[in-house]
């Protein structure tokens, strides 16, 4: 069902997910998730709508805590620490595990303030100008906005806004970057820029990306997890992990028929 991923790509693991079952209220949304997410690699989650890719992603920074009915079973460890343990502070965890969302969502503040905000609330004492420039260079946006840092974050294009969100996320020096369909609202050129940026970012960060775009998964990722959805008795959908392997294997030589059908475009 899943191969020994860390050995396959030759690195240590960031996340380790065991027997993950994720509920909204009494509804089981995703079942039987086993994952080993390698450090400083790009791991892609693919699968049809409703298969629970985003649900699993949002467990890694405990963003699902904000939904009162969400419930997690099983174990998720990050660098050996159970992140759902009582001793782990979710706010601190979220500083270390940054996130970029499907729709660019800059704060309605200046470009500078967007980047500086996370550092400010986390008590950054260094030179803010340096930090902002560093983060904007890191997200390949600096040259485009260096003369209008005081303009609203909402005044730039969608692709620039998404890179601003990436700058905002990396400004607080996270260890992991979760990306929830970061390119689905972008045009192909902006998408390409973000993909190039991801290759750059993976030198420093562990990246997990949810995507509906299979070409994107095959282009950018090292590991790929394929989720599928099955209809439930109550008319809902329940997701489950079908196969998790190096991206090459998933796209060229998958072990499951469902994976083969999905990546070759026969369904979904």
């Amino acid at each position, binding site marked *: 069902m899943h191969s020994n991923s860390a050995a396959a790509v030759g690195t240590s693991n960031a996340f380790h997910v065991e027997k993950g079952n994720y509920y909204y209220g009494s509804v089981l949304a995703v079942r039987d998730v086993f994952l080993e997410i390698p450090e400083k690699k790009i791991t892609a989650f693919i699968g049809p709508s409703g298969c629970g890719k985003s649900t699993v992603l949002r467990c890694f*920074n405990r963003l699902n805590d904000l939904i*009162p009915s969400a419930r997690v079973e099983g174990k998720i460890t990050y660098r050996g620490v159970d992140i759902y343990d009582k001793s782990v502070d979710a*706010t601190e965890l*979220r*500083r270390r595990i940054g996130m970029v*969302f499907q729709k660019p*969502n800059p704060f*309605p503040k200046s470009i500078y303030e967007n980047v500086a905000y996370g550092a400010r*609330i*986390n008590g950054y004492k260094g030179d803010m100008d340096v930090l902002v420039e560093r983060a904007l260079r890191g997200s390949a946006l600096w040259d485009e906005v260096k003369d209008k840092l005081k303009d609203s974050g909402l005044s730039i294009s969608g692709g620039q806004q998404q890179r601003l969100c990436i700058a905002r996320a990396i400004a607080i020096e996270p260890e992991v970057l979760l990306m929830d369909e970061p390119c689905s609202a972008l045009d192909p050129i902006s998408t390409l820029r973000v993909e190039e940026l991801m290759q750059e970012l993976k030198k420093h960060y562990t990246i997990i990306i949810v995507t509906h775009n299979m070409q994107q998964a095959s282009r950018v990722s090292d590991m790929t997890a394929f989720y599928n959805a099955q209809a439930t008795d109550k008319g809902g959908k329940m997701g489950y992990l079908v196969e998790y392997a190096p991206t090459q294997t998933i796209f060229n030589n998958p072990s499951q028929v469902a994976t083969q059908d999905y990546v070759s475009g026969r369904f979904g």
Partner: protein
Amino acid sequence: MTATGPKAFIPDEGIAPDEFEPNLVGRYKLDKVFAYASWAATIIGLVVLAFLLISTFADGLPRLGSSFLTSFPSRNAGRAGIASALAGTVWLLLITAAFAFPIGVGTGIYLQEFATDSWFAKMVEVNISNLAAVPSIIYGLLGLMVFVRILEPITGGRSVLAGGLTLALLILPVIIVATRETLKAIPDSLRIAGMALGSTRWQVVRDHVLPLALPGILTGTILGLSRAIGETAPLIVIGAQTFVPFLPTGLRSSFSALPIQIFNWTSRPQEAFHANAAAASIVLLVVLVSMNAVAIYLRNRFQQNR
């Protein structure tokens, strides 16, 4: 794909054009009838309002002068003024705002941002909707019991403070609902973005949600306040005075208010006092219209910023 289904779509056997009957003439006729009917409904309301305004202005304008605004009540209608009533209304306005704004906005923030989905929040929510529908005279009775009688050592009995507190209670539901509605309109993506950076809930509310919501909250508060200053019944119940020959000297001072003064003057037999009432109504209207204008200005600025 069953051929036996009664409504199976068979493209080759299209529906014949003569099976449609557009009846355009009849439909346009009905269209016109409804246009006229809705126009008439609008006009009826406008005519009544215009009549009210014109007669009030005709009666009141000749009486309106600077001495009317600065004189105290008098048995002589020609020398009577609204100084103490206007001052009382301003005092009430400030006291009401000082209590209703922080409590109402605080409650709204708690219910919308912190206590989502708990049974306590749901219970409070149902009660607030009910409170908003309670007649104002009931609030007057409550104010009489609590602020005038029980809390007399603090409020000084039938004082401007007791009046302001009663009105604050009256408009609390309005402010809470306005606050919640405004907060609801702020997109969740902002909150999630803040949380994902390691903000606490309060940091998200303070830094991202409130700055966007403030104009909307202020608009709701002002509309609530303009309801409060027009209220007469609760003030009568808690014992606002109709003959106050001095300006309020403190929170525990007895007081009058514009609606009380108007009510008193209209109930007198002499024509001259009726003119005074009309003039005082104009002053009250001007205060109300300017408050609503501020509310509209704030709302427009809010929409531009979004």
